[in-house]
């Protein structure tokens, strides 16, 4: 019983505003939260399966050449060792998000230092690790290969090129202009849970217990990698200890575990070492971005130029979509944009924490700050003056956009009016500065399915292969189903993360909640209709609350309506014409106060505020947490995070959490978040847009702009570590 719904027209009914149960939007706890913090949620690598053995992967020590395992036979005879496997189906690098097919495979040739080219399997993890370390890997006939994006050959991305009007003319005629180059370094997703898989076969059927974000794609990627039919593959991933994009696509350990398990006829567990997560999963590409802004005497933009260079491995099509929000954020009749991709031999570049906007909006917001100083107006005012009426390129309307309100309300809450002038405020040895930036992120609805079953006992079950990567999926799907079916939250059981369940959109691109939430909503609407039929009333006249149906001045328990039956519906949502009919995006604004030490140049963020508008908020607590997380990573991007590469061979030098500096508690001050009321009828019947990544899309610029305000120093190469600040103090 499938209920299919295609998003072809605005959903103006806003039914979730009228549901009596009142769950949607409430700041409810995550039902699986207690399991996670007490260690009772079973993560991928924690399953204990009868007969299970352990695999440890082995890295290539260089970036080019044919792989030779010179002591393979000796290693195979080490205590406990069951097999040393070098198989052409091993992945060269992970699949990109939504790839749906195998990425580049092969273990015979090294393409980057750290590539995982073999797996050693032993009875115990310790035996496997020792044997893997004993395996001598050499590379024959290697060549000099490019590892530096500044000198590597580049490929223009023609589909990303825009030339509207005459930017050069606008720049030369502008009263005020900014023409600046910023760089951002590579970032690593650094999830707390490393990538891990346990593969077990029953005959020709493979079960993979793993940690992935998008199971329906991952299943196809795994099947394609192994050259078997997807029906033979089941992936189970109920809990994911953080992904941040690195678990969108299938990673090397999954295929290695499957190959080894097949060969040995035993379940095989493979967890990547932290170093391997840094060296062989995904990095965000470093970027070099040139911003050109042309403005009149009032700061109104006449031109907007954004040219970026990013990089990736040979054969990979993903190019960090730096320009994504530049197309619609600000006005400017004359527009020029381009993106080029450098080919080099560092680990694969892919999706990490809001690909595109996290670095793209950040640099736009730095350039806007520079322009505000050129023009001599309040940076907030500059942005307010440049909010376009319609999309400045497609001339489409915005689906919903409380951008102006976010800027104004955020400024009010933060106390922006009391901002100091440049180098004006001091607190002992600390220089104090304020900075702000806008936030913007595209919104998307993706195909997604969920089955909802209303059971005879008056409880409900939601089933989908959707994942919860710590974002609150378990919570919000239960809230939507509870509201639509009139059930308290604890009467709805949400079952996720299993490809045997209806395929969902997966967690990524901030689309998970609205897409999978809509599939649940659609299924529930169908159940409501069936209940109404049983009661012989119009579905819209049926009020469901606390497992009771109220209609036509009567109230009846749901169990009595069901009379021992269950009602199961499959909700299936498809994106439709609303995706292209309007410009859909989320917006917001960040405000930060920093202190920069006058002697050492160390920066401490003293407080930070974000005001965001992302359509209907499905759960005020989990939405706020997403924003806090994004802003925290914004602090990291601004001040500390940089994946560093050896200049000679391109290997990741800082491949652990001690040296890859994500913010620690002491780096994160009081953060405040305001979620603006908004309904987006074009986005989905929930009127919700994605909020998962909005918190990072520009956040770092608020901090670096504050550093400028405190010190007069513009750091244009991220991160703003103290060495870059002290040279200007």
């Amino acid at each position, binding site marked *: 019983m499938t209920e299919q719904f295609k998003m072809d027209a605005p959903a103006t009914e806003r039914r979730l505003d009228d549901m009596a149960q009142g769950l949607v939007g409430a700041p409810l706890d995550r039902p699986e939260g207690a399991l996670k913090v007490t260690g009772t949620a079973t993560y991928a690598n924690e399953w204990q399966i009868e007969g299970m053995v352990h695999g440890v992967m082995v*890295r290539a*020590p260089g970036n080019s050449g044919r792989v030779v395992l010179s002591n393979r036979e000796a290693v195979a005879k080490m*205590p406990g060792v069951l097999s040393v496997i070098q198989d052409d189906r091993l992945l060269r690098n992970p699949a990109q998000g939504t790839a749906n097919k195998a990425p580049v495979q092969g273990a015979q040739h090294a393409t980057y*230092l750290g590539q995982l080219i073999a797996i050693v399997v032993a009875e115990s993890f*310790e035996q496997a*690790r*020792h044997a893997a*370390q004993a395996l001598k890997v050499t590379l024959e006939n290697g060549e000099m290969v490019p590892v530096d994006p500044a000198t590597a050959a580049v490929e223009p991305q023609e589909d990303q090129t825009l030339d509207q009007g005459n930017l050069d003319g606008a720049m030369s005629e502008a009263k005020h202009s900014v023409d600046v180059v910023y760089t951002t370094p590579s970032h690593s997703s650094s999830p707390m849970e490393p990538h891990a898989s346990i593969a077990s076969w029953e005959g020709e059927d493979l079960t993979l217990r793993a940690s992935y974000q998008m199971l329906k794609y991952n299943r196809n990627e795994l099947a394609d990698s192994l050259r078997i039919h997807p029906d033979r593959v089941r992936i189970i991933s109920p809990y994911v200890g953080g992904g941040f994009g690195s678990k969108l696509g299938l990673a090397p350990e999954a295929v290695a575990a499957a190959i080894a398990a097949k060969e040995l006829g035993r379940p095989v567990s493979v967890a990547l070492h932290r170093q391997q997560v840094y060296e062989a999963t995904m990095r965000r590409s470093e970027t070099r971005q040139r911003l050109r802004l042309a403005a009149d005497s009032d700061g109104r933009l006449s031109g907007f130029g954004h040219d970026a260079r990013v990089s990736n491995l040979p054969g990979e099509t993903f190019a960090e979509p730096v320009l994504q929000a530049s197309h619609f954020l600000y006005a400017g009749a004359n527009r020029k944009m381009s993106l080029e991709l450098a080919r080099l031999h560092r680990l694969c570049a892919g999706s990490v924490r809001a690909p595109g906007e996290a670095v793209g909006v950040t640099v736009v917001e730095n350039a806007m700050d520079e322009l505000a100083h050129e023009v001599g107006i309040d940076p907030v005012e500059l942005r307010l003056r440049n909010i376009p009426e319609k999309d400045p390129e497609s001339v489409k309307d915005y689906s919903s956009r409380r951008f102006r309100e976010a800027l104004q309300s955020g400024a009010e809450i933060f106390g922006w009016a009391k901002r100091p002038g440049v180098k004006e405020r001091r607190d002992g*040895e600390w220089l104090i500065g304020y900075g702000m930036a806008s936030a913007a992120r595209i919104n998307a609805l993706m195909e997604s399915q969920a089955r909802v079953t209303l059971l005879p006992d008056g409880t409900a079950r939601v089933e989908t292969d959707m994942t919860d990567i710590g974002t609150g999926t378990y919570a919000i799907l239960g809230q939507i189903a509870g509201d639509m079916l009139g059930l308290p939250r604890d009467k709805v059981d949400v079952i996720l993360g299993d490809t045997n369940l209806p395929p969902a959109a997966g967690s990524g691109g901030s689309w998970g909640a609205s897409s999978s939430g809509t599939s649940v909503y659609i299924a529930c609407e169908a159940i409501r209709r069936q209940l109404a039929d049983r009661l012989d009333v119009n579905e819209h006249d049926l009020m469901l609350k606390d497992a009771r149906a109220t209609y036509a001045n009567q109230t009846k328990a749901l169990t009595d309506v069901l009379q021992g039956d269950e009602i199961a519906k499959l909700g299936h949502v498809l994106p439709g014409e609303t995706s292209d009919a309007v410009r859909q995006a989320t917006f917001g604004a960040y405000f930060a106060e920093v202190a920069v030490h*006058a*002697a*050492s*140049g*160390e920066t*401490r963020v003293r407080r930070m505020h974000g005001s965001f508008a992302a359509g209907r908020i499905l759960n005020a607590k989990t939405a706020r947490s997403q924003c806090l997380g994004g802003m925290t990573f914004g602090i990291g991007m601004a*001040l*500390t995070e940089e994946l*560093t*590469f*050896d*200049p*000679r061979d391109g*290997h990741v*030098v*800082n*491949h*652990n959490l*001690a*040296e890859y*500096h994500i*913010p*620690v*508690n*002491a*780096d994160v001050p009081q953060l405040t978040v305001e979620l603006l009321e908004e309904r987006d009828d074009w986005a989905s019947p929930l009127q919700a847009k994605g909020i998962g990544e909005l918190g990072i899309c520009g956040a770092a610029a608020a901090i670096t702009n504050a550093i400028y305000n405190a010190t007069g120093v513009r750091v244009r190469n991220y991160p703003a*570590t*103290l*060495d870059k600040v*002290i*040279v200007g*103090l």
Partner: protein
Amino acid sequence: MRPFDYIRADSAEAATRQVADGGIFIAGGTNLLDLMKLEVMAPEALIDINRLELNQIEETEDGGLRIGALVTNSDLANDTRVRRDWPVLSRALLAGASAQLRNKATTGGNLLQRTRCLYFYDRAMACNKREPGSGCAAREGFNRILAVLGTSEHCIATHPSDMAVAMRALGAKVETLKEDGETRQLTLDELYLLPGDRPDRETVLEVGELITGVVLPARVDGRQTYRKVRDRASYAFALVSVAGIVAMEDGRIARADLAFGGLAPKPWRDAQVEALLVGETPSEALFNKAADQLLAQARGFGDNDFKLLLARRTLVSVLTELTETRT
């Protein structure tokens, strides 16, 4: 991690013999176990000294403190006597690692922790410290965190300890027991070796020689501080750190005991820097002269060039703080 034997030592004497037979002492293990998992270190045996009676902090006859080698960093940092009379040590300890690590890490182990040079930790990279004669990949690699003083063409690693920097400023002495039963006292200057052409040899300790404790001399007059400059607010190693004990008399500097971390393969102290300050009236010009002296022999290797400027600015700032008149 290679298979290894595990032996729990019953006495310090037995422990020294057991290590002399091919083992390595383990106390907190906060650095050693990481290195063993990476097979950067691969001892035949671990000699566990945690049951030895070396976890006391006692007052010495001359008003100092004897700190047992097994006193944890947390206990030492929070000892009321240390906080009152040797606050530079307490501050240095609390600036190091994280609370969890400090609960486990010991005084002796902290002194002997290995460098954080990223090339040392990667067995695919040349490292004279890990594998003598293999070369130094760090020198022309990414060397931002590495040393600018006391380096050699064979090694530019830094010593990562904060605690040892404070102890060096305090003139602490390390007490040891050798395999033959002999005991000795070493200043921190004497304990640590510069890399020269043997960066694998980091201390003068002989095979089997066990650090049993550290003796702090009696408290001295003056202000004390530990300033650690780093890339994030916690859980990051020092780019530059300064331990300072400065006393003033009649507007002149009467004492200036200064030690530096993050700059060199050992906690760094330069008697000429101190001599230049003592007897003088504080001024920014004077402090810069002190920095000139400190950095006279310093050289960067590219990414770490900024440490020269940072060390200067930090020293001037610390001396300003320690000499300024408080109202």
